């Protein structure tokens, strides 16, 4: 099977994740009222969650500059690539701004944001001061291992849940305003066999996902296609629009890690 070179894979993953992080900064700017007094991200609220931490206005003065740097640097990294000369500086600025904004918000994070942080740190360590083949390979292997761990954990956690095994989980989630969709909820309502099939499909895809690192070409193609469809479905029906950027964006690193995984095992 033809797999991408680690440098090309990390470059592509870095571009996609950076574009996603830039989009998230625009989303956060759109809900800036939530960062003002009375909002759920107000400085007083964030301070309450950090017992013992010194309450300071300083992080709030950093918030909007951090989000603007996140936007600008994200676009630069997406355009130039994290391994280019300009991209290396931009990806470092993007990481610093992203962490600063995340620190100020404290709440409302998700796994996609955590994976984005992992990708950005790995890209910075691989790219600075100048990219080396060893560090790029390490970064690609690390990202692939974290993504494989994420799918495996998510699948096993669902497999041991009676609610997921019975097929009740997805109809229940889709019936909520927060992560649901009336059309999808109506489709699964009163269809227990279809619901059970959908729940078990998610369990199977997530639990078996890491096998693609060791399986034949058809398994690699089938797994990544299923993963892409899964994240697209979650974005459309559940509003989980951050996950495709981080998780699907990391697929090039998964592909590039296949020879490394096979040499290890």
């Amino acid at each position: 099977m033809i797999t991408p070179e680690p440098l090309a894979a990390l470059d592509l993953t870095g571009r996609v994740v950076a574009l996603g992080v830039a989009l998230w900064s625009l989303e956060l700017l759109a809900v800036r009222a939530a960062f003002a007094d009375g909002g759920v991200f107000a400085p007083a609220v964030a301070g309450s969650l950090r017992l013992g931490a010194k309450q300071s206005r300083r992080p709030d003065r950093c918030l909007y500059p951090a989000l603007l740097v996140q936007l600008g640097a994200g676009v630069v990294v997406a355009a130039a690539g994290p391994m280019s000369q300009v991209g290396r500086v931009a990806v470092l600025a993007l990481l610093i701004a992203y962490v600063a904004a995340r620190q100020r918000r404290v709440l409302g994070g998700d796994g996609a944001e955590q994976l984005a942080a992992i990708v950005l740190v790995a890209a910075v360590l691989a790219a600075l001061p100048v990219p080396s083949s060893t560090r790029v390979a390490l970064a690609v292997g690390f990202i692939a291992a974290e993504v494989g761990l994420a799918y495996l954990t998510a699948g096993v956690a669902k497999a041991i849940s009676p609610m997921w095994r019975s097929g009740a989980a997805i109809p229940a989630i889709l019936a909520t305003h927060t992560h649901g969709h009336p059309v999808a909820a109506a489709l699964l309502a009163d269809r227990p066999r279809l619901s059970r099939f959908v729940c078990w499909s998610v369990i199977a895809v997530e639990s078996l996902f890491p096998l693609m690192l060791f399986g034949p070409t058809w398994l690699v193609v089938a797994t990544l296609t299923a993963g892409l469809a899964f994240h697209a479905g979650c974005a459309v029906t559940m509003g989980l629009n951050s996950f495709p950027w981080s998780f699907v964006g990391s697929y090039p690193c998964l592909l590039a890690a296949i020879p490394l995984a096979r040499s290890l095992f």
Partner: protein
Amino acid sequence: MESVWSLCVGALFACWLAGSVVNQFRLGSWRKVTAHDRFMLLPRWTFFAPNPGRTDPHLVFRDCRDCEPGPWREIGWAPPNRWLWWLWNPGRYPRKAVSDLAAAVMTGAAAATGSDARLATLSPAYIALLQCVMAQPGAVSGGLRQFAVVHSRTFAAQRPLQVAFVSEWHRVEP
């Protein structure tokens, strides 16, 4: 020099990955480590498992004037545009934040029972929600304010509501 730097990077990735693996298990002793994870770099990848949220939390509050409780008011956000939210979904941030805080408050309340029941009001999540509620407009100096977490489910117009948590009354500081 490059080989030393590569060795350090490799060691960092190995430790980070090992920490990520351990973090997938709910080990009591490991919590001392995660308590110092200020940058939230140790992921926990369970995603809607084992028990996904089946309800929508709503944060409501009311004021008490002249010993008479007023009507409940909701601290809400604009509903999401479900045609566009696969790409653009800014409301997910505050909604997730309220959901996380409400879940933490209820977990604290469930754990603090009997004579320790009031300990729940000292939890960071309770204080965070209280900070949010007390900053809402309409408060009368010296008056009292109370908040509650109410759960709803389904898209039906007449949704059943369930009161999940009711706070104590808190005096509005002048």
